[in-house]
């Protein structure tokens, strides 16, 4: 039976190799005896039961798009979910550039073949648009940590709800402008901070301005940059479970960042109706793998790894936040329980969560592992 292990690349101690709980009534995993069943029992019917329950309850997914204005974030979201999530914003014409970063969230319920998905898209207009972009990532980190905080508060209530509403950001899509050179300092700063708090998927935006060769070179340089600065984007290498996952994820990692083009208009090409951008020199088909890598992004985000994104957010990022939160009153340095997704260089401060949250944090402080002796 496979279990998700947090394989820790950075710190020496495996966070799962904890000392066993002092409560004697629990064995960490009991001695199990394998048994052969001589006939059909019907255990696998539990899968159907699971499906029925899940479909009745519906799914939730929260995605955040970050990037400078004009990179086609809203269009991308519309293309991804094939619906008019956003009215694509076009600034100018009397609408002033937002002075500060504002976060906008939109929630929709979309349904397909009986599967209901409550989708929340958070946009960040104004990111990186100012002259001085110092600390422009703070509002974003603050928002993400605020969602974690909300979930934590709900979780530690005495009487808590049956199903805690999940507003945590599951995936953050970062749009890299297609300069063709390499990652800019702003990109690097932002990615470094964010990839430790949330799953980040970088994409090359407006990739139709690069030729295929330029694209490949750009991608290579970006990958180099990411490696140099120790930025682990999704899918994280240290969280690969087994061989199958490794193989699948390596293929994905080779192609990150995807070069995408967003379009929400339809055109007729060879008698088919396709989504694409029409230019004087041709029509760029969004869903054509030869033209751009949008299908890869869509498959990663929606068709194959959506549940995985949610799981990693819940099991890794949220737990990290929780540990940090519950420890902070003890002013402990980061212990071995912290899953190091990226070895932090000395200059990078601790996650900006507590700085951004307002007021005295209402935190639940439990005694540590041996809580029985206190109570």
């Amino acid at each position: 039976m496979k279990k998700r292990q947090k394989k820790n690349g950075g710190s020496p101690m495996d966070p799962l190799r904890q000392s066993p709980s002092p409560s004697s009534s629990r064995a960490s995993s009991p001695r199990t005896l394998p048994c052969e069943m001589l006939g059909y029992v019907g255990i696998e019917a539990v899968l159907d039961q699971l499906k029925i329950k899940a479909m009745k309850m519906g799914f939730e997914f929260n995605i955040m798009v970050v990037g400078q204005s004009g990179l086609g974030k809203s269009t991308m979201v519309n293309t991804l979910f094939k619906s008019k999530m956003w009215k694509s914003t076009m600034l100018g014409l009397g609408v002033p550039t937002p002075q500060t970063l504002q976060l906008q969230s939109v929630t929709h319920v979309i349904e397909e073949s009986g599967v209901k998905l409550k989708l929340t898209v958070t946009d960040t207009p104004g990111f990186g648009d100012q002259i001085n972009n110092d600390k422009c990532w703070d509002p974003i980190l603050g928002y993400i940590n605020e969602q974690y905080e909300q979930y934590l508060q709900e979780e530690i209530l005495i009487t808590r709800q049956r199903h805690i509403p999940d507003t945590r950001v599951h995936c953050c899509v970062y749009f890299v402008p297609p300069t063709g050179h390499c990652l800019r300092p702003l990109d690097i700063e932002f990615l470094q901070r964010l990839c430790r708090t949330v799953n980040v998927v970088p994409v090359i935006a407006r990739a139709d301005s690069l030729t295929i060769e330029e694209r490949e070179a750009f991608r290579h340089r970006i990958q180099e940059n990411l490696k140099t600065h120790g930025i682990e984007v999704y899918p994280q290498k240290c969280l690969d479970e087994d061989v199958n996952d490794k193989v699948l994820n390596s293929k994905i990692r080779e192609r990150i960042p995807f070069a995408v083009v967003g379009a929400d208009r339809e055109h007729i090409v060879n008698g088919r109706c396709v989504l694409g951008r029409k230019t004087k020199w041709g029509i760029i088909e969004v869903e054509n793998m030869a033209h751009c890598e949008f299908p890869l992004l869509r498959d990663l985000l929606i068709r194959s790894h959506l549940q995985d994104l949610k799981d990693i957010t819940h099991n890794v990022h949220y737990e990290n936040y929780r540990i940090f939160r519950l420890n902070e009153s003890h002013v402990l340095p980061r212990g071995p329980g912290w899953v190091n997704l990226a070895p932090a260089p000395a200059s990078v401060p601790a996650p900006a969560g507590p700085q951004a949250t307002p007021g005295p944090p209402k935190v639940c402080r439990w005694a540590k592992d041996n809580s029985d002796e206190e109570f």
Partner: protein
Amino acid sequence: MGEVGGGVVELRDSSGGRSPPSTQRSRSSAVSCAVAPVSAAPVAALAEAGAMAATDIARQVGEGCRTVPLAGHVGFDSLPDQLVNQSISQGFCFNILCVGETGLGKSTLMDTLFNTKFEGEPATHTQPGVQLRSNTYDLQESNVGLKLTIVSTVGFGDQINKEDSYKPIVEFIDAQFEAYLQEELKIRRVLHTYHDSRIHACLYFIAPTGHSLKSLDLVTMKKLDSKVNIIPIIAKSDAISKSELTKFKIKITSELVSNGVQIYQFPTDDELVAEINGTMNAHLPFAVIGSTEELKIGNKMMKARQYPWGTVQVENEAHCDFVKLREMLIRVNMEDLREQTHSRHYELYRRCKLEEMGFKDTDPDSKPFSLQETYEAKRNEFLGELQKKEEEMRQMFVQRVKEKEAELKEAEKELHEKFDRLKKLHQDEKKKLEDKKKSLDDEVNAFKQRKTAAELLQSQGSQAGGSQTLKRDKEKKKSKVVHLSMPGAPLAPPASVLTAAANRVHVLLLKAATWS
């Protein structure tokens, strides 16, 4: 510009559609763009606003967040499959607790249910108390792996005094909840790999008397119904005839209802399974037979029990309800049992436990209580108590020492007094003795003087005449002188004086003798 008509092709020319959201909303009902702008100039307020946005979203969802139709196949209908794959890789676990008297066929039923032979020897009837025996097995069917834990009571109902029979069971169930709660409250926890040992289903075996429930059964079920999902079953039901069985079932259900025992009801809220669950609910408690022997009936091998008067087939619905039990327990409601355990029984336990520890969500002023504050307060209280106790003990110690000291001092004083008294006595006696000795010495000296004077007189008298009398007196005196131990008395003094002196000396000697 009115393009939206509920058709498939939704996406239109959006370049001209620069109209504000309000007109767009009024234009179509199918498309809604619920933009909730969050403006926050200072950073500190942003998080708060973020919370507001979240609550806005929540409210919108509550108000019926509008569905947006899709223009094409997006592909998230694979989500249930993704979820299932993830569950498969994690594995399932299911824990069954079998409560029933010894010899009712608990182990056999488990073997029959899961089509395998679990290890274990039958229990004796001589157990001094109720114990629980737990075994975990790894079952695999196609690609689904199940970690099955079967817990059985050993010695239930065998004692003469059965008052405490239910206690080990309740303690065991609570211990599993406690272990999960401890894991959940840890700072560094691994909930997704935690082996869930909480009991998901409790099969309560009722003895097939045919009359009614035993009081032991009622008491035990009443204690367990708020902690675990109870499914009562009639064991060894081939001992009851069909007509007796219906009466028995009716009696049991009425007794359970009248005593307020809440047994597990199969869920009827989902249309797919509502029907079958509804009918099954009417058949509770299930009358089951367990058997691991296979007999050839017709041309198939079936699990059955052979009697001289016939064969009872386990999987024949007309003979017993075993198939129904298997359907309900495993094939239809396993997930629901697990969910009820987690969301109802475990939450109840958690709530009670946390309230017992003194944590509240809101204090009397209905301000949300910070758990940290509560914790600090409790901790300070506890430390304060400890300090008080320490003080008390210290004071007691000091007091005792003082008392002991006083006692000792008194004793010392007494001793001193005694010593003084004795000393004084001794001195008095010594003084008396010395006085007497002195007086005696005085008298001896006086006698000596008189003696010398008398001798002088005698020497003068003997010169005058009267030597005969002197001779007689000399003899007398010689005999008398023998008695006398007076040193230096060679001369014979006159007889009268001598006798008087002798008498006096005699008396003096006597005195000295008494005083020596």
